[in-house]
């Protein structure tokens, strides 16, 4: 067996995160709370789709000469996707979308900085680009957490509710999957557990400004990184894969 298998799985984990979140953000297109935010959210979605493409292209290159970015993105089965459960959570109301983004970006702030120094040159280059995008996405998400948390009674309530609802899906961010540990040992890729203190510090400062409470529950849902997903995943794929499944092998 080639030594590439863990690497492929690792790259797919990052790629699937980017694609599924980009897909979710794309659902907002045309339905945002205000025109300016429609444009802002599409920008974020485009960053994610762009990142997914770079990662799938890289993975396809390692997999086999016939493999393509679209095959990896559209033709795998549900249990072969390696994205976090967090990113497949439905958009819900605007507060849920903001909370989902915030939890992930707060994690990625340090993660991509660390990945930039990995021994895998392609990943390091993708990380370098992602650092800048993440800085902006984090700013967007944290400002909205604060606005909604601090704004009105209704928005405060909705923001807290979203944070509470998504909380059980944050634990998985810090669990190291086998491919991650292999990549850490072989290429000096980051240990997700090491991101926790930076993540918590960001949460504390933003939630304090927003007047929100950090949930205390510590029973966490996990499984996405190893291919065990929530019920939502099937619907995401049914929609996302529709064309490639209905008309296999065609150019678009």
């Amino acid at each position, binding site marked *: 067996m080639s030594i590439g298998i863990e690497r492929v799985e690792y790259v797919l984990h990052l790629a699937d995160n980017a694609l599924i979140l980009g897909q979710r953000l794309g659902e907002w297109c*045309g*339905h945002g709370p205000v025109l300016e935010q429609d444009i802002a959210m599409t920008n974020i979605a485009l960053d994610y789709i762009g990142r997914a493409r770079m990662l799938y292209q890289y993975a396809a290159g390692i997999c086999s000469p016939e493999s393509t970015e679209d095959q990896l993105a559209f033709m795998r089965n549900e249990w072969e996707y390696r994205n976090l459960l967090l990113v497949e959570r439905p958009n819900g109301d605007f507060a849920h979308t903001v909370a989902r983004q915030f939890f992930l970006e707060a994690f990625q702030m340090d993660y991509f900085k660390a990945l930039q120094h990995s021994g895998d040159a392609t990943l390091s280059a993708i990380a370098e680009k992602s650092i800048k995008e993440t800085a902006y996405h984090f700013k967007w998400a944290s400002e909205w957490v604060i606005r909604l948390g*601090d704004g*009105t009674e209704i928005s405060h309530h909705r923001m807290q509710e979203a944070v509470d609802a998504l909380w059980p899906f944050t634990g998985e961010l810090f669990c190291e999957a086998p491919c991650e540990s292999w990549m850490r040992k072989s290429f000096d890729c980051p240990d997700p557990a090491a991101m926790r203190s930076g993540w918590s510090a960001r949460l504390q400062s933003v939630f304090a400004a927003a007047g929100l409470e950090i949930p205390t529950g510590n029973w966490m849902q996990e499984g996405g990184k190893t291919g065990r997903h929530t019920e939502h995943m099937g619907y995401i794929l049914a929609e996302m894969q529709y064309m490639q499944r209905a008309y296999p092998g065609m150019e678009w």
Partner: protein
Amino acid sequence: MDTENMQKAMPTLSFEERIEKDEKIEARDWMPEEYRRTLIRQISQHAHSEIVGMLPEGNWVTRAPSLKRKAILLAKIQDEAGHGLYLYAACETLGVSRDDLLRELHSGKAKYSSIFNYPALTWADMGAIGWLVDGAAIMNQIPLCRTSYGPYVRAMVRICKEESFHQRQGYEIMLTLSRGTEVQRNMAQDALNRWWWPSLMMFGPGDSDSVHSLQNLRWKIKRFSNDELRQRFVDMTVPQADLLGLKIPDPRLCWNPERNHYDFGPIDWDEFWNVVKGNGPCNRERLSDRVAAYENGAWVRDAAIAHAQKQRSKQVPAAS
């Protein structure tokens, strides 16, 4: 300023003279009330069309068949949001707020381009919309870059510049389909069949039936008549369809060497007016989607304002 001074300071050229000289009218310049009303109606209709137009394409973002197409489609729809925004802003220089305009859209009082009341059924519709609908829109819009109202001109210049990729990406989708498998060619032909006539209707009623045409031409709000632009669109599009190997669904379509134009069959204006009146296949969905987005976003907009007010009151030092 008192009235006597106003009299003295009246611009040397009258409004009509300025229009005649191709001078641009700016937001704070004097203008006839009817000119202002016409502009508000036309620009806001255009703005509404942009944001309603996001919906049929938005339906396909999550189903786009490749990552590249997904990114392009998202970027295109995002541009449409931007264009709606530029146009609402141009309208706001005339003294109406975006929220007023949205309320008119949501109540069904304001119109938008009827083309978006047709459904986007297959992926080929993303091609046909880009090629035909954006093509027709560009044909309408390019002359508007020379319209008489300054803020409208500037919005249109920006829009036309950004839209240049929209039609091309649509045509490229059609090209890929027409060079693909049989099922893809059928998909492309079916999309052309459904979008052709509504695209011709986008130029509005024939010149003899258009109520606003003449005065709008005189004020240089419009620069060409509906029928002129429609003919130009047909002349341009027929060879493009030939290149795709697709058949335009009009048995009367043929080249007329005497006129140096294509002749084409009669447009079903009954259908047009029915769709305008709200009886199109998707009028209700489109409007209710827009209303839902607006209403579901109200608490978000309120929260942002409330937060901004709290921040401001924190910054202001206590009054001495």
